[in-house]
C-alpha cells in the first residue's frame, strides 16, 4: 500500500541528499577549474574574472574574499608539501628556494579553512621579501614550525592541518600562461617531533 510513497520518498531523499552533499563538498574541495599548480603551490589567476567557471563564481560568492586583480598580484596556497603529504602543524617544514619574479612577496600561514592563524602577536607569523634572511645566492630557507627555530622562523599554532599562502605582488606571472616553467620554493618536511 505504501510502496509508491516510499519509492517517491527514496527518490527525493537521494536527490536532495546527494545533490546538496556533492555541491558542498565540491565547493569545499576546490576553488574551481583553471588552476595553475607549481609543485605544492596552487593559484587561480582567473578566479576574479567574468570568464571563470560557475564553480569558481559560486565559491567566491560563498567565501566572500576580496580577490586580487590581475595587476595587483597572484596568490598561491599550499595545503601539501613537495612530497604530496598534507601540511600538519605537528611537523616542521622548510620553505626553500626562490620565488618567481615579482615586485614583492609575502608568506603567511592560515588554517585549513583559509582563516587567519591567530598566533600571539609577539611571534613571527609572516615573512616578506624584505624581512626574510637570505643566503649568499639570495635564496631563502624559512623554518615553519610550532617550536622556536633559529634564522627564519615562521611560527604556527598546533591546530592540525594548515595552509601556506604566498602572495606575489605585481608579478608578470599573473597574466601569463608561461607560469608553468617558473620555479616556486619547495616545502620540505624536516621532522615530526610529536609523532
Amino acid at each position: 500500500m505504501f510502496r509508491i510513497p516510499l519509492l517517491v520518498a527514496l527518490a527525493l531523499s537521494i536527490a536532495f541528499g546527494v545533490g546538496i552533499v556533492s555541491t558542498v563538498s565540491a565547493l569545499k574541495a576546490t576553488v574551481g577549474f583553471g588552476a595553475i599548480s607549481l609543485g605544492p603551490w596552487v593559484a587561480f589567476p582567473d578566479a576574479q574574472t567574468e570568464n571563470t567557471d560557475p564553480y569558481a563564481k559560486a565559491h567566491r560568492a560563498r567565501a566572500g574574499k576580496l580577490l586580487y586583480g590581475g595587476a595587483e598580484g597572484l596568490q598561491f596556497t599550499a595545503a601539501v608539501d613537495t612530497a604530496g603529504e598534507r601540511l600538519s602543524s605537528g611537523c616542521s617544514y622548510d620553505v626553500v628556494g626562490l620565488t618567481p619574479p615579482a615586485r614583492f612577496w609575502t608568506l603567511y600561514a592560515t588554517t585549513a579553512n583559509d582563516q587567519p592563524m591567530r598566533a600571539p602577536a609577539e611571534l613571527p607569523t609572516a615573512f616578506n621579501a624584505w624581512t626574510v634572511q637570505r643566503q649568499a645566492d639570495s635564496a631563502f630557507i624559512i623554518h615553519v614550525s610550532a617550536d622556536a627555530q633559529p634564522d627564519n622562523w615562521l611560527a604556527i599554532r598546533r591546530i592540525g592541518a594548515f595552509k601556506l599562502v604566498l602572495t606575489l605582488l605585481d608579478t608578470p606571472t599573473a597574466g601569463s600562461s608561461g607560469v608553468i616553467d617558473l620555479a616556486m620554493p619547495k616545502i620540505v618536511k624536516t621532522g615530526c617531533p610529536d609523532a
Partner: protein
Amino acid sequence: MRSILFAIIIGLVGAALLHIVIILTLPQFTGKDAYSRVLGLYEMDSFFSLTNEPGPTGLSNDDPFLRVAVCSFAVTGGPTRFVAKGSVPFWSVSIYDANSNEVFSMNDKTSVNGNLDLVMATPIQLVDIRKTPPESLAQSILVEMPEEEGYAVLRALAQTDSFEEPVRNFLSEASCEPFRR
C-alpha cells in the same frame, strides 16, 4: 526490486540537476559575497579602511603586510573618481562590479606619476567627458564601467611596522567620490 532501482536512478538524476542549479544560482543568494560585505559597511562614496580583525561583515586585512580599504560606488548619477596620493612602497587598486567580476585593476607602476587618479563611468558619460574634457581630468585614467554598481579595493603595502603610519594616511586620505564638473 526493479522499481527501487528505478527510484534510485531518478534520485541520482535529480541530485545532478540540483547540483547544477545550486552551483549556478549560489552567487545570487549567498548574502556573504564580497559585494554584500562591502555594502554592509554602509560606506558609500568613501574608502573604508579594514582592520586586522574581521569587521562587522567579516572583511579584514587578510595579508599581514597589506592594508586594505574598500569603497562601494554607483555610476548611475555620474562618474565616480578615485584619487589617492602619498608615498607608499606599493599600492594597487581593483574595481569589481556587483557580481565581483574584475573590471579594472592597476598598481602604482602602471599609474601616472605614481598617484591614483581613476574615473569610472558609463559609456554615455565617457562620451560626454571626451567631448569636452574637463581640465581637472587631464591626468586621469578613464575606464568604462559595464554595470552601474560595484566596489573598489585599494591595497597598500606596509612591509615593516615603520610603514604603518604612511600607509594608514594613504588609505584614509584616499577618496572615492562622484565626479562633478
